[in-house]
C-alpha cells in the first residue's frame, strides 16, 4: 500500500505557511521576516520531491507541482514585486531633519519645527492608499 502522508505533510506545510503569514501579519517578528514563507515552500517542495522519487504517483506529482509553483510565485513577489528601490535620502543619523509644514487630518498646518525643544518626534512615512 502506498502511503501519501509525505504529500499530505507537504500540502499542509505550504497552506499552513500562507495561513500563518496572514494570521500573524500583526506580529512584527513574523511580518518583517517574509522570507519565512519561502523557507516553508522550499521544505514542502523537498518533501514532495522525495515522495515523488520514492513513488511516482499522481498525488505526489500534484503536490510537487503545487509547492514548486508556490515557491516561484512567492519568490517573485518577495524578491521582485515587493522590492523598494534605494532612494537618495537626505536623512543622516546625527544630522537635523529638514523642516516641513503639512496639514493634519483636520486641515490644520503642523510644522516639524514646532516640536523642537519640546518633545521627541517619530516620523513615519508610509505608502498610503489604505
Amino acid at each position, binding site marked *: 500500500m502506498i502511503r501519501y502522508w509525505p504529500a499530505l505533510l507537504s500540502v499542509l506545510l505550504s497552506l499552513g505557511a500562507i495561513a500563518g503569514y496572514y494570521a500573524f501579519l500583526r506580529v512584527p517578528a513574523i511580518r518583517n521576516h517574509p522570507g519565512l514563507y519561502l523557507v516553508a515552500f522550499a521544505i514542502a517542495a523537498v518533501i514532495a520531491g522525495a515522495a515523488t522519487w520514492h513513488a511516482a504517483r499522481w498525488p505526489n506529482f500534484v503536490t510537487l507541482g503545487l509547492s514548486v509553483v508556490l515557491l516561484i510565485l512567492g519568490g517573485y513577489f518577495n524578491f521582485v514585486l515587493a522590492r523598494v528601490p534605494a532612494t537618495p535620502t*537626505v536623512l543622516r543619523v546625527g544630522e537635523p531633519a529638514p523642516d516641513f509644514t503639512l496639514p493634519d487630518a483636520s486641515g490644520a498646518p503642523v510644522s516639524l519645527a514646532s516640536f523642537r525643544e519640546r*518633545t*521627541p518626534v517619530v516620523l*513615519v512615512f508610509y*505608502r498610503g492608499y489604505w
Partner: protein
Amino acid sequence: MTELGDRGVQILAISPDPNEKSQELAQKLRARYRFLADQDLAVTRRYGLLHAHGGHKGQDVARPTTVVLDRHGIVRWLQLADSIQIRPDPTDVARAVGQLPQ
C-alpha cells in the same frame, strides 16, 4: 505605537493620502498618531524618500521609512524599508526612543 504616544512622544505619520482617509484610519487604529497629508509628495521628495510609480496602480508613493528625532530635531534612529512587506516594529522604535538623551 500607542504606548509611545503615552510617553509624550509625538508620532507624525506622513503619506500622500488625503485627510479624510487618514482620519478614518486614525479612528480605526485608535492611535495617537497625527496624520499629515503630503498629497503632492513634496516633503517626501525633499526627504529623498520618493518611490516613483511604486503604488499598486503605478502612482508615486513614499518609501516606507521610520525616523526617530530627539527633542532638538536631530535624527537619532532611521529605518528605510527595502521591501513593502516590512513595517516599523514598535519594539525597535520604542527602544530607539528609550535611548534618546533626556
